[in-house]
């Protein structure tokens, strides 16, 4: 049905989500409190949610709808991006319900079904239901099963059902497949939304704009000019209270498998013929499939564990010294890998991926480092690190892009030095730049999947990571120690040094 009020040229009109109900499993979790509920409120406040929108919390707490609304108010007051507006909140709160029960409690699902029926009446949700599973993956099985048994996953009524799942999507290829089988046995593949919140960030979307909306980068974006690519995601915090979750997972599974390989795919992929979900995902999938593992995995990877020490003026506890933690753990808090992409465009250009905790500072960036210019004129600098151009996309914080190039130093001599040219979304922009979750939740409600990875992408990324994990697991020794506040263990530097390169200081 076409709507004559919607004109493709009329770009002032935001698309507003249609009526529906969002069911949050694990509503009392950290993510739901700090990100999801505030994002839903921000969407409502920006006028992007329909007025009759409904939110159902599902959790073990013994809450009434009012208790839930009161809690939600506090979460929103604490973490929402936009100012608090009583009217908007009241409208939203009128559509809030709470189902108290365990994830395997049949009675609770009965109540959920009744509640959704009631909301279809009182809030005209049109029986459109999105189930957001903000819960540990070990529960996916049970919840999907129960949703299916209670005819909530696919009901005969009009209206859509969608399911949203968060990483981790398994812990290896095998488990990812099993997990997917569970979810896709209940929900059709195109109703499954896998959230990687990095993909909702403006800068990541801007990567596509920079690459394909400009003429000046793409001609250089290949092995003729690019020497190598470094993708870094560094955190300055440690494991803290998440030790029990983190043990056995590690930096590679936690970050490289999803965020960094997605960034790699967006950096390296060919131009999609449109922003249509299928086109975009096919290109990402193609390039991930073309990723080649190095023959000697030990030579092409490094891992580390942060030790106790002083970082930025405070004393921090080392990974192995966390209370109640297994001091013999082989879980890595820092991982770096080298990958090759076996395509005409990238053959011979290594991609270095690193991720870690307790590093120098919190930063995520993609650095495309160009080959050295043939230095005939400025021979004084032939051997040092000057003269290598770089294009850096800063994903967070301080979102923006930097170009690094050489310039003459003022004076009588022909001295050159590297300078940077900076584009910042700037502090000025952050005020109006929406949170990644706002964008992603809205996309779920609108049913627009381009920013969500498909299962095939998830499989590909496990295919890439699994051999490293197996190799590391087979090593008798623990990962190399590194000091908090540093940029990882010495072995990470050696990984680069073997190739005659160094890590950028992000």
């Amino acid at each position, binding site marked *: 049905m076409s709507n004559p009020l919607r004109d493709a040229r009329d770009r002032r009109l935001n698309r507003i989500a249609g009526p529906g109900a969002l069911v949050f499993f694990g509503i009392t979790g950290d993510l739901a409190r700090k990100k999801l509920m505030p994002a839903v409120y921000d969407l409502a406040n920006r006028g992007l949610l329909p007025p009759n929108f409904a939110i159902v919390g599902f959790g073990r707490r013994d809450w009434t709808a009012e208790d839930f609304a009161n809690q939600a108010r506090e979460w929103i007051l604490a973490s929402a991006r936009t100012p608090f507006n009583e*009217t908007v909140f009241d*409208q939203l709160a009128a559509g809030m319900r709470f189902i108290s029960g365990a994830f395997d409690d049949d009675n609770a699902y009965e109540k959920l079904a009744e509640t959704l029926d009631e909301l279809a009446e009182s809030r005209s949700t049109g029986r459109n239901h999105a189930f957001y599973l903000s819960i540990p993956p070990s529960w996916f099985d049970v919840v999907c099963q129960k949703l299916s048994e209670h005819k909530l996953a696919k009901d005969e009524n009009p209206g859509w059902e969608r399911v949203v799942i968060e990483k981790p999507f398994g812990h290896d290829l095998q488990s990812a497949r099993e997990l997917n089988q569970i979810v896709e046995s209940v929900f059709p593949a195109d109703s499954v939304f896998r959230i990687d919140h990095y993909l909702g960030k403006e800068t990541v979307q801007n990567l596509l704009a920079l690459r394909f909306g400009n003429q000046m980068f793409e001609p250089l974006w290949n092995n003729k000019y690019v020497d190598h690519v470094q993708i870094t995601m560094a955190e300055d915090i440690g494991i803290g209270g998440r030790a029990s979750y983190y043990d056995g997972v590690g930096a590679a599974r936690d970050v490289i498998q999803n965020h960094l390989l997605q960034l790699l795919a967006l950096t390296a992929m060919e131009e999609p013929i449109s922003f249509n979900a299928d086109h975009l995902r096919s290109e990402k999938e193609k390039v991930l499939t073309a990723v080649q593992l190095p023959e000697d995995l030990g030579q092409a990877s490094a891992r580390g564990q942060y030790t106790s020490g002083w970082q930025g003026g405070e004393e921090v506890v080392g990974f192995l010294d966390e209370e109640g933690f297994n001091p013999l753990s082989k879980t890595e808090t820092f991982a770096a890998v080298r990958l090759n992409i076996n395509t005409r465009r990238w053959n011979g250009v290594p991609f270095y991926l690193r991720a870690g905790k307790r590093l120098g500072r919190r930063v995520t960036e993609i650095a495309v480092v160009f080959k050295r210019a043939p230095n005939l004129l400025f021979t004084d600098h032939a051997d040092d690190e000057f003269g290598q151009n770089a294009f850096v996309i800063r994903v967070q914080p301080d979102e923006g892009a930097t170009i690094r190039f050489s310039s003459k130093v003022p004076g009588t001599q022909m001295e050159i030095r590297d300078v940077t040219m900076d584009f910042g979304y700037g502090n000025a922009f952050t*005020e109006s730049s929406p949170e990644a979750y706002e964008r992603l939740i809205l996309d779920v409600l609108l049913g627009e999947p381009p920013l969500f990875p498909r299962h095939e992408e998830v499989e590909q990324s496990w295919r890439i990571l699994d051999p490293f994990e197996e190799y590391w697991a087979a090593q008798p020794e623990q990962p190399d120690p590194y000091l908090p506040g540093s940029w990882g263990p010495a072995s990470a530097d050696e990984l680069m040094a073997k190739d005659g390169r160094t890590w950028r200081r992000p």
Partner: protein
Amino acid sequence: MMIDLPNTTTNKVAKKLISSRRTHGVVALSRVLTLVVITREGFAENAIEAANLASREHPCRIIVVVRGSEKGENRLDVQIRVGGDAGASEVIVMRTHGPNMAADEALISALLLPDAPIVAWWPHGVPADPYNTALGKLAHRRITDSNETSDPTEALFQRASTYRAGDTDLAWTRITLWRAQLASIIDLIGTEGLTGITVKGSENSPSTSLLAAWLTMCLEVPVTIAADKSTGGLSSVRLTREAGDVELSRPSGAVAHLYLPGTAPQRISLPRRSVAECLAEEMRRLDADDVFGEVITRGLALTNLRSIRSSDR
């Protein structure tokens, strides 16, 4: 920080901009456009405030030309505002006096950002033909505000008769949220059985006229405008349908009510938009707004703009 440069020239201003950047480390980060505000004494500060707010979304250089008396001695006084006094922008307020100090390209060209688009904004009073003014020709986008004139409806028709691609009017921007809600209502209920629409709003409100014109043009049903003395702008839109009427109504405040047949009224946040918000929306896209162009050149003519007062009914 404010720097006053009384009785000066743009050449000196440009030099001062560069030197202040050196000495005070005031950096110009990624300015995306030059906003030229053409105004008169008495209206300048409000306009600057709105422009500063809008600059948070679009870092820009703001040049405010305040035209003083055309008589007397020729004189240009300039004030540069940077840092905390200028939001995310740098503001150059140029007060011109005397017969030869026209607000034209020659006056400001040294201060325009290289290669960046230029947006001209008349916050108060609409020139008869904005494109054919000295600064209008220079601009990629010309923003007027027909509401801020002595006769808004007259101003709107004037805008229609001189419309050029790149023109836009804040009366149109003010109804974006209404239009978005109406579009999503039509998403929900479709257009089947829609027999007529009543748009209620204050008389002499260009926003009301534009909304009526947009609906007439797109939906091809009779649209009636009903006068509402109690408000300063739009107050409600009623869709008359065979399956029951739908009404979106905002009698006052920031909350609208949506009445759909068979359901309880729903409350929607639909605040009046500030000038700064409208300006920020205008600067989001710098290409021509074709839909506005069609509404003002074609839709207005199709629409019965005579308001029906309650006494006529």
